């Protein structure tokens, strides 16, 4: 019975800073009023693949089980369809909680290696920052190169079809006033949240 692991949780296993950090993000403030009814899980179309139902995530977050939440695939399966947010009888914006957890995981690098969702988010983020617009073909190509390059071969059929039907836009599109965009995106860099923002 060497493989038996301990499942009891001591208070020391919880991270008391976890819930306050999540609740501070807009949309997550009502987390504590969850009654664990399971509506979010029941309505979630992606819950069929989740290792923990969203309802359980809610509870784990509010009581500080950071490691458990960050080890779950639930957050990464959320595709932001907002069904949970709309149906929650406590009006908890569950989708925003999922976003908050993704943000935290990406900032703290707490995600499975070469996890496609994170790579996609990061590549998307960089591309839009660079050009102001997103080019699907470039994005998908980069995604597969970075995660699972032989998928590119699988995608060849679709790619050929898209080219044939004139839906394959190779030329990346840039916006004109990129400096303006960067000024907006880098606002926090210039004025870190701890310092008072200028009026």
């Amino acid at each position, binding site marked *: 019975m060497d493989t038996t692991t301990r499942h009891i949780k001591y208070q020391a296993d919880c991270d008391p800073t976890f819930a306050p950090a999540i609740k501070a*993000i*807009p*949309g997550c403030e009502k987390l504590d009023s969850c009654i664990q009814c399971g509506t979010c899980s029941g309505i979630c*179309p*992606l819950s*069929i*693949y989740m290792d923990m139902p969203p309802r359980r995530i809610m509870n784990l977050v509010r009581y500080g089980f950071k490691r458990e939440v960050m080890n779950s695939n639930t957050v990464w*399966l959320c*595709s*932001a*369809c*907002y*069904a949970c*947010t*709309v149906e929650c009888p406590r009006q908890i*914006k569950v*989708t925003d909680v999922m*976003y*908050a957890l*993704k*943000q935290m995981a*990406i900032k703290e690098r707490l995600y499975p290696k070469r996890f*496609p*969702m994170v*790579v*996609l*988010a990061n590549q*998307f*983020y960089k591309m*839009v920052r660079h050009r*102001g*617009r*997103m*080019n*699907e*073909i470039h994005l*998908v190509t980069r*995604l597969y190169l970075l995660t699972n390059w032989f998928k590119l071969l699988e995608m060849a*059929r*679709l790619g050929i*079809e*898209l080219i044939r*039907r*004139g*839906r394959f*836009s190779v030329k990346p*599109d840039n*916006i*004109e006033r990129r400096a*303006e*965009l960067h*000024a*907006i*995106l880098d*606002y*926090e860099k*210039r*004025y870190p949240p701890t310092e008072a*923002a*200028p009026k």
Partner: protein
Amino acid sequence: MTKRYTYFPGCSILGTGRACEESTRAVFAELGVELDDLEDWNCCGATAYMSVDEHKALALAARNLALADTKECPELTTPCSGCYLVLNKTQRYMEEYPRVGDKVKCALKDAGLNYTGRVRVRHMLDILVHDVGLDEVRKHVKRPLKNAKIAPYYGCQTVRPYLDFDHQHYPMTIDRLAEALGATPVHFPLKTRCCGGSQMGTLPNVAQRLCYAILREARRQGANLILSVCPLCHFNLDSYQPDIRRRFGEDVSITTMYYTQLVGLAFGMDPETLGLHRNMTWDGSWLEREVLAGATA
């Protein structure tokens, strides 16, 4: 009385969603609605930006709102449900959470932009059905789509979390539009269920299962066409049918269309103009079978 709206095309319109753009422009031009392009618009950020950074995501989308703020018409419309949601959410959060809103406004000001809050984000479906009106649509119908049995597919981000023009759980706007075109909408319990969205790229097995359920149910309910209102939903439902058949061992093939393409067909427009040849599930026979045959019958 030409109606004028500020138009935000969205990134997918440049590539995979070209047909949506083409048919949207064609149909709205036919109806006398002027779409005034938002100059130098940028990506709304979609779901990916929000996953990385809250402030940056809102600020990115807010630039578009600030650009639209300077336009004569404060009603900003977009053919993409994803863009519709993100722009809408950004606007609402800036009001609901002043802490966030003030910061975004400061960031805009720093870049020489100003956002007063007068912009109203509208879905093009809403404009078509409520501003233009179904009576007006009916007037333009030259080819009633008598044999078309339509599974109306709203997808998630059209109706959730914000929807002020219909019911969120079981909306009927597309159904009524389809009726106005002479088609028959079928009961479609999955009309607002997620297609998987961008998961199609990252976790194809997951997204394809969601699409499988939608395609299968549409056929089971007796539909011969799925009508979608979002370029991404349309792409997922349209392009992956062979993959889904391979994966689940079941033929779920069904014609899919972006809603303006169907409107255009009913208006008697040429399929090329509507970009129908760009759809994977389009081979022209659907038109023969369901429309032309029906028109003569």
